[in-house]
């Protein structure tokens, strides 16, 4: 499957789309307004899902409906945002008016349909690119939200950037514990602390986090997840093989795995060494929808290890490890 997928390396003609998620009250709109009022020279089109009590101060604000539908493509968990396809298509008719798009989701939104829209729809893929998923959480309520909603964990699992907001409402110890909790779910997300969404705009825009070149490019700051979490909680597991994998064995294994466990696998990312190939093979998936290609070559003297990370629920660590290790090239 991955070797037959199209080239998805970022096309510089495409407009970057940053997705802002976070449960109600975490401070999404405050962050949004902060980005919009900062002098960064970018013209931003904003797509919002609810006109909340906090107004959004921007020239171009579009209301969306979060209309999710299932694709009839055999993937039971492949859901797509139809309203987003229409809105992005409409915006592209006047693309000279803006440089970037910021999409705010509702507090209860599952980020998967948004992300999958960028993998599945040919027009969206041709004209825009998913820049990053930015998740805002607040230091006071995160543990409670993780305990009582499914979405809070999902939003962290999908995050490329986590804004840990309202840090003034927690002690340093509490903040450190929260960060550890976030990293257990998603070791590759970059975490920024903020008070009223006061983060530099570069931490949110222009991340290029979905570009295959950047997959697993940054070393995770917290690799070993705690084993105390129970199965329904979102967590991550990662594995490494010191050498190359056999492309056919890997394709067979990952295709079967995504088809079977896709609903539980929120995000999967891998960088693989193939025998006799000087370039890395980068791979990512959102549920069952996968995307992969050869990217930049291995550096001189660099260890050509193959790595894979799963973020999801009900992850059977020994089984996943055995499966991946069995892909090692002979």
């Amino acid at each position: 499957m991955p070797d037959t997928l199209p080239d998805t390396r970022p096309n510089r003609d495409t407009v970057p789309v940053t997705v802002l998620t976070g449960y109600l009250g975490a401070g999404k709109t405050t962050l949004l307004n902060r980005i919009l009022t900062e002098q960064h020279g970018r013209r931003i089109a904003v797509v919002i899902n609810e006109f909340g009590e906090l107004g959004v101060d921007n020239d171009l604000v579009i209301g969306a409906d979060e209309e999710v539908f299932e694709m009839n493509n055999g993937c039971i968990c492949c859901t797509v945002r139809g309203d987003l396809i229409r809105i992005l298509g409409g915006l592209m008719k006047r693309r000279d008016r803006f440089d970037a798009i910021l999409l705010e989701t509702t507090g209860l939104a599952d980020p998967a349909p948004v992300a999958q829209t960028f993998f599945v729809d040919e027009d969206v893929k041709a004209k825009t690119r998913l820049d990053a998923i930015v998740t805002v959480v607040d230091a006071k309520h995160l543990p409670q939200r993780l305990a009582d909603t499914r979405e809070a964990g999902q939003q962290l699992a999908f995050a490329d950037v986590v804004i840990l907001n309202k840090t003034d409402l927690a002690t340093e110890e509490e903040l450190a514990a929260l960060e550890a909790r976030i990293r257990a779910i998603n070791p590759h997300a970059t975490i920024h602390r903020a008070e009223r969404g006061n983060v530099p705009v570069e931490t949110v825009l222009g991340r290029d986090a979905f570009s295959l070149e950047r997959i697993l490019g940054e070393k995770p700051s917290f690799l070993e997840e705690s084993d105390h979490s129970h199965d329904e909680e979102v967590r991550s597991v990662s594995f490494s093989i010191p050498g190359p994998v056999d492309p056919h064995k890997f394709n067979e294994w990952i295709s079967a795995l995504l088809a079977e466990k896709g609903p539980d696998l929120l995000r999967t990312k891998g960088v693989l060494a193939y025998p006799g190939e000087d370039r890395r093979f980068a791979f990512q998936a959102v549920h069952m929808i996968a995307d992969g290609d050869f990217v930049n070559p291995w550096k001189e003297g660099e260890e050509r290890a193959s790595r894979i990370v799963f973020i999801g629920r009900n992850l059977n660590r020994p089984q996943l490890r055995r499966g991946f290790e069995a892909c090692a090239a002979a």
Partner: protein
Amino acid sequence: MSAEASGADFILETRGAQHRLEAHVVTAAVEGSGRTAAFALGDGTVALVSLADPARVAARPAVHDGAALSLAPDSAPGAFLSGGDDGLFARLDATGEAAPLATWPGAWVEHVLAFPGKGPWRAAAVGKQVHLFDGGKDARILKSLAHPSTVTGIATDGKGKRIAASHYNGASLWFVAAKEDRPRAFAWKGSHTGIAMSPDGRYLVTSMQENALHGWRLEDGADMRMSGYPAKTKSMSFTPRTRWLATSGAEAVVCWPFTGDGPMGKAPRELAGGDAVLVSQVACHPQHEVVAAGFADGLVVLVEIESGRVLPVAEPGRGAVSALAWSPEGRWLAFGTEQGFAALVDFSSPPPR
């Protein structure tokens, strides 16, 4: 230029008037009297061209604050309907004078349509609603038809008796003049992204997210599925006597036969293919079994459906064809591209020059 004019641009150079509009051409239309053509543009303006003087843009009013999204001939000759992402639904006369019919702040007017015959009406699709307006002088709103999700396309039959809307999980068919408004619902799971209704009123066809078409035969509700497209179908057009449905989304103009019991079990005719470039727009001639097709590389051709004979109109290189429309009597073809090129081609015989 005469040497180059012998190529695929021969028709455009000898019979066409060309315009550089410098904005994405969203859609094109020629109003009911056949005197004025219009191009709705991504910068919110509408370029109006008098067909008596086709080389000049007569007016280009800034109708919308945003992008123009939809354009159609008005129910009365000499005017157009225009919808935009500023929520404005306006009537535009040939001089460029715009009269607002309604505004829905914060919403997009994505589809507009009018029926000019007996019992005229105007319609605008806004979110989940299709708003129906009187087609006469006062253009008052008659009713609003609610759908389960956002309306992605509207169509009518040849007599203007019914209006059909596509949305998630199917299509809804309404009688325009019904006292009690309940649609006939056509269910099929998935995202339906556009709709066409056959002129004889026997068939509804929707385009779908999964590179396929779905159809219903109205007399018995039979489902039809037309698949095999490499890309999404964004443009569909029936020939005037419902013999063929021409469609975009493949590397040829795919024409499904609708004679007899419809296309079930029959193969489509694939026309003007061979260049590995997707067809982006189609428009059937209002009288003859001829289809105009625009490609993603800018090529525009006419194809006679029975014989498959191809007449090149404009060569590639001016941007993906994004708009294609015939004048009501079929003399003029208007087309436009994503790069802001637009042209009007006169097919009257004998040749104009």
